[in-house]
């Protein structure tokens, strides 16, 4: 009795002050947060819900009229061969492209960790592709791969490969060129994330392992790679989300062709929405993407939160 009463007493007087302080704190937080939250509610969340709404309607350009069709457009997606082709291309961009980026990026990080003289300059150069406008990157590679005068075929000819495929004209090849250019532009991203993690690993671990007689290969597979894994996964998910919505690069490199072989989901949604003003249908494609992107970003953000807890 006694103890509970004292506890009760001890608690009750500051609780008013504490509550007041908490309220003031909350009000301050609201003032600080309010503008940004309000802005995002109106210009991010609302458009996102708006496009869900639009996806249930069919837009008639001539009448400029919206007609409710419910889930009809989602249903027609299921039997739309272009949609499935675009989904496959997008899956290759994410599955193959990002996997290669993770492997190459990690390999680069390990290589640069040898700290050769001049490697910091090269590291600086590797930042450059990432900031380039993807439309122009597409254009640039179209020049490099030009069948008549492009530099790539000339170089290949120099090493004796005289019959290169028509890189961007051959339907079975163009998709891989798209994946390749994305790898060229974004491997440095994985590299920089993994390299930064590598710098935070304490030297002692490696020294101890060396003392214990671990071979270099053993050290790599048993110690370094497991310690780097979370950074690689983080960079990989980040890249996967971006590769999933690839649009600009397709616009500059292939405009979705030849045939539809390089049409990604974003590009298909753009074509139907922008070129053919089928706003509803376009939105239904985009919304399928939103669902995937939301799931992936939830996975990613969970990892970020965990990491921030660790840091505290």
């Amino acid at each position, binding site marked *: 009795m006694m103890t509970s009463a004292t506890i009760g007493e001890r608690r009750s007087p500051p609780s008013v002050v504490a509550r007041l302080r908490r309220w003031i*704190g*909350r009000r*301050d937080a609201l003032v*600080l947060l309010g*503008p*940004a939250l309000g*802005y*995002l509610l109106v*210009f*991010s969340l609302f*458009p*996102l819900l*708006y*496009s869900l709404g639009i996806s249930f309607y069919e837009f008639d350009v001539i009448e400029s009229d919206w007609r409710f069709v419910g889930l009809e457009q989602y249903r027609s997606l299921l039997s739309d061969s272009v949609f499935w082709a675009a989904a496959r291309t997008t899956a290759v961009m994410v599955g193959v492209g990002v996997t290669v980026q993770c492997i190459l990026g990690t390999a680069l990080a390990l*290589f640069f960790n*040898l700290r050769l003289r001049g*490697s910091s*300059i090269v590291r600086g*150069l*590797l*930042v450059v592709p*990432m*900031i*380039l*406008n993807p*439309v*122009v990157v597409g*254009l*640039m590679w*179209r020049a*490099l791969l030009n069948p008549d*005068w492009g530099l790539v075929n*000339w170089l290949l000819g120099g090493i004796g490969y005289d019959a290169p495929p028509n890189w961007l004209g051959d339907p079975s090849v163009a998709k891989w060129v798209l994946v390749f250019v994305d790898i060229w532009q974004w491997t*440095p991203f994985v590299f*920089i*994330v993994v390299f*930064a*993690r590598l710098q*935070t690993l304490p030297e002692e671990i490696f020294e101890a392992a060396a003392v214990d007689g671990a071979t270099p290969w053993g050290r790599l597979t048993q110690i370094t790679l497991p310690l780097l894994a979370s*950074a690689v996964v983080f960079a990989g998910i980040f890249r996967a989300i971006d590769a999933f*919505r690839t649009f*600009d690069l397709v*616009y500059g490199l292939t*405009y979705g062709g030849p045939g539809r072989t390089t049409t990604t989901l*974003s590009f298909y949604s753009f074509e139907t*929405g*922008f070129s053919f003003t089928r*706003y509803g249908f*376009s*939105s239904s494609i*985009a919304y399928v*993407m*939103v669902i995937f992107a*939301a799931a*992936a*970003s939830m996975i*990613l*953000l969970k990892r970020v939160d965990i990491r*921030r807890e660790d*840091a505290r």
Partner: protein
Amino acid sequence: MRTRRARRVLRVGQYLLLAAIGLVGVAPIAYLLLLSSKRRIDILEVPPRLNVEWEVIRSNYADVLFERNFLDFVVNSIVVTGISVGIALVLGVPAAYAFSRYRFRGKDRWASTILSFRFMPPIAVAIPILLMVRSVGLTDTKAGLIIPYVAFSLPFVIWIMIGFFDEVPRDIDAAAALDGCGPWGTLIKILLPLVRPGIVVAAIFSSIFVWNEFLVGLYLINSEDQKTIPIAAAGLISAQRPIDWDVAATVGVVTLVPLLVASFFIQKYIVRGITAGAVK
């Protein structure tokens, strides 16, 4: 003896690999630069000759910058990027401060909702934004572009700034509070100078994004005089039709150069921005 030689061979191999990596990274850009210095007819020459003809360079760039008005598009891009990023910082920095310092209900859910906007495909909001901007009569204006660009930049700014605020010890806030600083006083007088590198990183990342933004811009801008560089460039180089390569290469270079020059100075900030959140 043999091992020493083997080691030397390995070293040479490593340096060759390093050089090759650097070359793969920048040679494509150098090639574009080279093409922009050539007459249309000379581009067909294989291998490309490395001679520099100033007269050709001058006429290519004069054609693109003045005849094709790319100087105006560069100015449009600078204006749109500057204002968008400025507004995003003004809104986003206090929000990140609140996320870093205050406890309130649903905080984590709010934070991750905001951050998840960073990952939404822009194509999903392009049509709603077009309809919204059209309904207030702002299509074909810079304001119409700036409105969605601020929304796209905010998650970047908040994400990056939360990390930088978290690194500042809370004792500093407490000391400021003892000196009678309110939350705004603490933020503006004490914390902002401390997180200035973070502000630079956030500004750079949003700038790169806005400078390169293309998809939503295509929907919103039709008239020639409001176009930003990527939109104008896309009009010339659309993969659908045959290309005048001298013009296209020059346009490409004009689009890339501002960021290339900037990246030279801001490299370390770019690396910091990429690794923010990844290696904490």
